[in-house]
């Protein structure tokens, strides 16, 4: 559960990062101020107290970076960076980008066209009720190779004596 809650707060961290980062900056500044005051109380001059406080605190930027990493999901962060980088590169080379986009658009368009044709014509069920009442009619002319479908028909009224005839050669 802890792991899950840590993950959730990291996810939220991706969203609320900017504010949290600013808050941490304020927090660290307050910490440094207090530490400086303490050194002044101990007899250091204010000019010496501030660097001493910084030394005792450690690298401010490093700590902020550690917190930043901990707050966000590294993956999401780097993904966002990659995306921004990609957009920048596209903007830099306009002609290449246009050709690439056009190629993609044509490719996707053609694929969609072919697939919707195939789906509609070959895959989708015919829009009729009682499929098993339909009769298929083929023409079978040996001299022309494979039998050819003429179509599917529904007998207007089933003939009393109707029977299937396999082949009338």
């Amino acid at each position, binding site marked *: 559960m802890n792991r899950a809650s840590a993950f959730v707060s990291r996810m939220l961290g991706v969203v609320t990062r900017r504010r949290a980062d600013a808050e941490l900056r*304020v927090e660290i500044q307050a910490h440094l101020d*207090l530490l400086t005051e303490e050194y002044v109380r101990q007899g250091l001059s204010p000019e010496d107290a501030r660097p001493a406080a910084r030394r005792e605190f450690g*690298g401010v930027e490093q*700590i902020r970076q550690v917190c930043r990493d901990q707050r966000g999901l590294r993956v999401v962060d780097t993904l966002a960076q990659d995306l921004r980088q990609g957009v920048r590169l596209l903007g830099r080379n306009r002609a290449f980008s246009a050709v690439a986009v056009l190629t993609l658009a044509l490719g996707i368009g053609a694929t969609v066209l072919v697939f919707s044709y195939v789906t509609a014509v070959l895959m989708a069920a015919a829009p009729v009720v009682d499929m098993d009442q339909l009769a298929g009619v083929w023409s079978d002319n040996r001299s022309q190779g494979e039998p050819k479908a003429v179509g599917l028909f529904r007998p207007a009224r089933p003939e009393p004596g109707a029977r299937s005839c396999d082949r009338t050669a």
Partner: protein
Amino acid sequence: MKPLQSDVPYGMLDLIVLNTLRSMGPLHGYGIARRIEQMAQGSLALNQGTIYPALLRLQQRGWIRGQWGTSQNNRRARFYRITAAGRKQLEAETESWERTVAVVGRLLEGQS
């Protein structure tokens, strides 16, 4: 002579911070760091800043909660308090730590 200082082992700091918050009540980051230094009496080499990643970690796990408030000298500060889950975690961790220390102690005794 300079007293021997040891680095804080990873994960130890979380435990120390939890314990400090349990015994002292709500504190801001500076207060926690000061308190830890007092208790360690110079035997711990700790950059005060390192408690901030620890505080964040503990918050993310729900073991402490942070809230902005005003310190004695009217300064805006973020105060941290331990949660019920944090107390439970502290108990469990302390117990396991004591067990580890006992085992290591026994093993080292056998060698001298």
